[in-house]
């Protein structure tokens, strides 16, 4: 009978067996992740299971930080791992080096997770997108200084609007440091404030080539930019994270140049057209006034201005005649009355009496009429007025009646 093993000895032995087996180092195992836990240390702990069984897994920080996506429960994965035993507790587990997502590329999964996260934060919202200026005073570009991209941008800008200003910050557009360089360029343009629009971009390529434009820090730098950013990543069909977060997306760098710069002739024509409409507008307004004025002139007030006067004069004449007629009618009436009265007066006049043979006796000394014999004595002188003259008389005798 063999001597009994100590626990440590046994565990160590089995561990040795496992680690010596080539088929277990490395081993690819597929299954579903559950019970996932990550610790501040950076190590990941979870269980991999299939319909019947499960196995404990650990992924140390050194491997875990290379992952491009977040590990979550429910993910169906293929682990690249080392099957072994933790000799301290005899636990059989997988020491995981890499996790591949079954059926999808890792990159795509990472992309989908970041896209959802930033979208939920509202970074893709239309309301956040800024309008591009009509005519930029200066265009900022962050791209490779060599190659077709910057050449095409310069060419297209120049064709549309010959006098343009472009400021380039040269950056790497793929590889490890590219995302950080592009983010720095966006921040630099914002700090200097000397451009009115920014184009970030590169030519076409594989998903790995474009990966810098899916970087979270770059996406946040673009979202934070006060200056409008156009993302031009030269990928016809697929979008990068920058495409979603930018103020405008262009399918190619040349298209970006067209979007930021209007054509000079178009602007000149617009101004000319407005100028014409302005002059026509004034012309029409003047014509309206002219027509109103000539209509007024055509009316009788202007054509025969004396008409009114004539009418008034006619009325005046009529009134005068009426007045005169009224007056003369009255005076005729008065005249006949006058004459009637005059006739009566005439009949009563003493002269008329005298013409009938009577005489008027008056005292020559006073001129007064003698009305009684009492005032007369013989030898007095008296005047006797007849109709046609006066008799100078001496009284012979006075006899009473």
């Amino acid at each position, binding site marked *: 009978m063999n001597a009994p093993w100590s626990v440590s000895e046994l565990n160590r032995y089995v561990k040795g067996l496992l680690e010596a087996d080539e088929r277990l180092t490395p081993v690819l195992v597929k299954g579903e992740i559950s019970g996932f836990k990550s610790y501040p240390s950076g190590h990941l702990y979870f269980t991999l299971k299939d319909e019947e069984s499960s196995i404990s897994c650990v992924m140390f920080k050194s491997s875990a930080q290379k992952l491009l996506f977040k590990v979550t429960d429910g993910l169906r994965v293929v682990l690249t791992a080392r099957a072994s035993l933790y000799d301290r507790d005899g636990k059989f587990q997988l020491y995981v080096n890499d996790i591949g997502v079954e059926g999808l590329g890792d990159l795509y999964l990472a992309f989908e997770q970041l896209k959802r996260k930033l979208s939920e934060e509202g970074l893709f919202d239309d309301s956040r997108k800024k309008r591009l200026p*009509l005519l930029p005073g200066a265009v900022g570009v962050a791209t490779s200084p060599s190659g077709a991209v910057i050449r095409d941008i310069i060419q297209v800008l120049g064709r549309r609007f010959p006098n343009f200003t472009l400021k*380039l910050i040269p950056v790497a557009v793929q590889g490890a440091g590219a995302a950080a360089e592009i983010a720095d360029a966006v921040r630099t343009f914002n700090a200097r404030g000397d451009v009115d629009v920014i184009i970030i971009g590169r030519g076409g390529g594989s998903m790995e080539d474009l990966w810098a434009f899916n970087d979270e820090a770059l996406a946040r730098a673009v979202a934070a930019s006060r200056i409008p950013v156009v993302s031009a990543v030269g990928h016809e069909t697929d979008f990068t994270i920058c495409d979603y977060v930018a103020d405008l997306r262009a399918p190619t760098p040349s298209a970006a140049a067209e979007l930021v710069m209007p054509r000079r002739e178009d*602007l000149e024509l617009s*101004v000319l057209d*407005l100028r014409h409409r302005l002059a026509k507008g004034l012309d029409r307004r003047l014509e309206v006034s002219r027509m109103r004025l000539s209509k007024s002139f055509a009316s009788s007030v202007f054509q025969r201005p004396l008409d009114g006067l004539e009418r008034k004069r006619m009325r005046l004449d009529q009134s005068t005649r009426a007045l005169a007629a009224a007056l003369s009618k009255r005076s005729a009436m008065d005249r006949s009355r006058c004459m009637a009265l005059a006739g009566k007066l005439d009949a009563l006049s003493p002269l008329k009496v005298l013409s009938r043979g009577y005489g008027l006796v008056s005292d020559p000394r006073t001129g007064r009429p003698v009305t009684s014999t009492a005032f007369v004595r013989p030898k007095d002188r008296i005047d006797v007025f007849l109709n046609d003259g006066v008799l100078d008389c001496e009284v012979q005798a006075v006899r009473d009646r």
Partner: protein
Amino acid sequence: MVAITLEDAMKELENLVKRMESGEPTLDESIALFQRGVELSKLCAAKLDEVEKRIVQLVETKDGNLAEEPFAQKES
């Protein structure tokens, strides 16, 4: 350099022309609109010439600042 942007000047001119074409303004106002409109269209034309043709690259100088250098296209 005038503070108003080309975009704002053109917008003002457009609104002005629309007002003129509406037939509402009096004769005096129409004349005033016309004068302002001529001013604006001259401004717009001038704005098109304001931008200089310049293509520069920002490079870091020895003291850590950024300077503008004329950009010469390098072939990759």
